[in-house]
């Protein structure tokens, strides 16, 4: 077979271009056989090779004092003190979820959990960042995805403590499902998936291998079109029960020092897990006998076995001669384990089927060989501008508030998160519903705050700024609990990067992320890229860089939540407000507009505000704190009241020119919080604010069972709650 003679159709099937094929032949100095072609196809897919995004991702900062493990392993890890490391990562499962929402989302959760387990960590929390088309047309997606996430997380017994849900037209055919998992491990027990030690055994543990998901990784690297449903056998069915047993068995491995490394099997199955594991060690290779792989079905070929994406499997590198110890641990959990090969020092992945040779490829060709794709970015058309003078003035702030709270992007998420077990583990000290959730580290006073954030409408209107705003919002969500932001994981969801305007969005987004993370001194320790989120090239998604963030508080007894606490407390707005209506929910809900520029972000001011709130929290001045985000000041204030079950009495708002009334109530200026405190704490807060050069303004006094702005409106809390909770149930 020569480069010319290979069937074009076959190349498409394995998602390789003729150019890539030529590169393979050149490197091997021969044509690859069928199995080799399949193996290279999956590993060179965008999903595994990052060939379109690698160059850009290098710009993201990943170093920091607390970082123990940056990108490159199954998950990132940061030191949180007292001997503990927090391990976390976010990952997309968009394409499978578009085809089969329940199983797609469920197996997405299963996959990200295995990444954390592979680091030797016990998973302690899950988050899910979701994007759907408008309701009710998207309800099939919403129902399936939410049920799938709950189905997996609830069964395996890891609390799902946070996430986000947004509805926009652009996600109608391309729903996004990004799942994040956070785990804990003693620093000295942190594992790395490196196939060290020639002669050590490779054991495959967990589920038997079936024919599921062959070419799943390539599938995730294509646009969805009419034929997608024919590729549906790529959809896999998760088994959370089996993964629970796998999790416990892997935790039990800590009792033996016979284990050198653990690597999960994800996209591209055995091929990628073995290649990646060997690829992390200079000169290492692996020898695999597919005949030894336990199978679920009869009639599977070596091709199937090497490419299967059967879920709930792990590769364990075991010191030679100690396989029985490891087998016993898995056996105790009724799990199959099989020695399927060993580590070599020839830098090649050799696959045999009993006595028969099946494939032999250089590890470096598999993991690093894909020629980077050089794409060009061209700035997208400027989105429609916003003529503020043409906007009709705000007539009835109260009525607008009710409409905003009842809109799908702002309404209560309780209808969703009550379907997730968010309490198992006895560690959730801040449950979902406010800003970040918080988990205590048992046996210490440490609290880990976790959140995911991204306003993709901002990113659509200005990707560079939008990405920065996502980082800033995530940080504010962490800070609103009293915790310090520590590190970031990111899931970059884009449309087809072959389109210059999409590639430009990628460039801008990544530049914006990098810029903001540098300003916040936040390392990005793990992440994931999902491309081709456009169905048949028509409906491209907004650039959606989901920021997952972890923060730390040294004593969770000092944590803050969003709800007002006591009658008579002062309710303050920290930070200042501009005419920031561009890209706002107010514009969309009240005026049907997606227009303008997102709010400007002054990173220095943002940091000053953050420092003030953290200092105030540290000194015990605050009763509550809440981030002011979508929907602006009034929506945030209403949330503080609803979450605390206490109303608020405020004097009329009379914004000073040039601030408009609508922007004062509903503008989305960043760098703002709503806090409450007792009157006694006021002087100290005022002096802190002066010291940090941050503007603070008194909004009103907590109390009563309504929200009122003297002479402007008064709404009973019960009515507000009905609007807020009625929308998403």
């Amino acid at each position, binding site marked *: 077979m020569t480069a010319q003679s290979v069937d074009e159709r076959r190349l498409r099937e394995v998602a390789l271009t003729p150019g890539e094929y030529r590169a393979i032949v050149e490197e091997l100095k021969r044509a690859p056989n069928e199995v080799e072609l399949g193996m290279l196809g999956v590993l060179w897919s965008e999903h595994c090779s990052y060939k379109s995004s690698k160059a850009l991702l290098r710009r993201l900062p990943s170093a920091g004092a607390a970082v123990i493990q940056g990108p490159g392993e199954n998950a990132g890890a940061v030191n949180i003190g007292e001997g503990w490391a927090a391990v976390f990562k976010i990952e997309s499962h968009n394409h499978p979820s578009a085809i*089969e929402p329940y199983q797609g989302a469920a197996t997405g959760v299963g996959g990200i959990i295995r990444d954390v387990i592979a680091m030797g960590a016990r998973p302690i929390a899950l988050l899910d960042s979701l994007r759907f088309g408008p309701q009710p047309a998207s309800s099939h997606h919403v129902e399936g995805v939410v049920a799938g996430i709950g189905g997996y997380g609830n069964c395996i017994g890891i609390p799902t403590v946070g996430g986000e849900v947004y509805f926009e037209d652009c996600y109608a055919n391309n729903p996004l499902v990004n799942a994040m998992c956070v785990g804990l491990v003693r620093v000295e027990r942190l594992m790395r998936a490196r196939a060290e030690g020639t002669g050590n055994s490779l054991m495959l543990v967990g589920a038997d291998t*079936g*024919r*599921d998901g062959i070419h799943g990784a390539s599938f995730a690297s294509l646009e969805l079109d009419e034929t997608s449903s024919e590729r*549906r056998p790529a959809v896999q*069915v*998760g*088994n959370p029960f089996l993964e629970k047993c796998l999790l416990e068995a892997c935790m039990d491995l800590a009792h033996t020092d016979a284990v050198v490394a653990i690597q999960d099997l994800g996209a591209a199955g055995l091929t990628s897990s073995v290649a990646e594991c060997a690829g992390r060690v200079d000169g290492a290779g692996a020898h695999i006998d597919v005949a030894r792989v336990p199978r679920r079905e009869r009639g599977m070929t070596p091709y199937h076995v090497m490419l299967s994406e*059967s*879920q709930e499997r792990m590769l364990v590198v075991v010191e030679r001669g100690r396989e029985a110890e490891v087998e016993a641990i898995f056996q105790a959990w009724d799990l199959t384990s099989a020695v399927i090969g060993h580590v070599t020092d020839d830098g090649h992945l050799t696959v045999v089927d009993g006595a028969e040779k099946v494939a032999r490829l250089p590890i470096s060709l598999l993991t690093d060989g894909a020629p980077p794709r050089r794409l060009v970015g061209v700035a997208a058309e400027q989105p429609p501008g916003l003529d503020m003078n043409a906007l009709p003035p705000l007539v009835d702030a109260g009525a607008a508030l009710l409409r905003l709270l009842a809109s799908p992007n702002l309404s209560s998420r309780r209808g969703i998160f009550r379907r997730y077990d968010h309490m198992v583990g006895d560690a959730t000290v801040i449950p979902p519903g406010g800003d970040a959730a918080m988990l205590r580290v048992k046996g210490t006073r440490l609290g880990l705050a976790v959140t995911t954030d991204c306003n993709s409408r901002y990113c659509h209107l200005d990707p560079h700024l939008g990405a920065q705003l996502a980082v800033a919002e995530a940080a504010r969500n962490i800070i609103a609990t009293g915790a310090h932001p520590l590190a970031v994981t990111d899931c970059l969801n884009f449309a087809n990067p072959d389109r210059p305007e999409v590639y430009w969005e990628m460039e801008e987004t990544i530049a914006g992320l990098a810029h903001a993370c540098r300003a916040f001194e936040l390392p990005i320790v793990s992440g994931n890229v999902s491309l081709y989120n456009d169905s048949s090239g028509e409906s491209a998604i907004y650039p959606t860089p989901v920021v997952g963030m972890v923060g730390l508080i040294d004593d969770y007894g000092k944590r803050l939540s969003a709800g007002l606490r006591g009658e008579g407390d002062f309710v303050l707005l920290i930070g200042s407000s501009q005419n920031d209506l561009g890209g706002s929910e107010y514009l969309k809900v009240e005026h049907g507009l997606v227009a303008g520029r997102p709010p400007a972000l002054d990173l220095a001011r943002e940091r000053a505000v953050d420092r003030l709130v953290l200092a105030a929290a540290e000194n015990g001045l605050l009763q509550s704190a809440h981030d002011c985000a979508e929907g602006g000041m009034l929506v945030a204030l209403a949330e503080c009241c609803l979450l605390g079950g206490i109303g608020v009495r405020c004097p009329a708002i009379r914004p000073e020119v040039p601030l408009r009334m609508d922007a004062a109530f509903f503008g989305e200026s960043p760098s703002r919080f709503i806090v409450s405190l007792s009157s006694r704490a006021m002087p100290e807060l005022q002096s802190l604010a002066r010291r940090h050069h941050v503007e603070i303004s008194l909004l009103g006094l907590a109390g009563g069972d309504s929200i009122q702005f003297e002479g402007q409106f008064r709404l009973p809390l019960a009515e507000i709650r009905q609007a807020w909770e009625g929308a998403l149930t």
Partner: protein
Amino acid sequence: MIARVIVTPKPVVNDPQGITVKQGLATLGFREVSDVRVGKYIEVNLEAETEHEARSRVEAMCKQLLANHVIEDYRFEIDMDGHKRR
């Protein structure tokens, strides 16, 4: 009349439930069991003029709601004299 619909996981699709039930049966001593698949049974009471009509309506129900054709197969029978067993 009654339509009796059986929905089963497609043969290539993983069936964790079936696998686990098989293991459960083995523990109970039913070692002669080599494979178990678990699906759904749906009994639909409906009105229709003819069996032909019933057939085409139930076919449509299966396609649209009762089975998830990504991972499941279905089959059904129509019982013209069937009535609710209550």
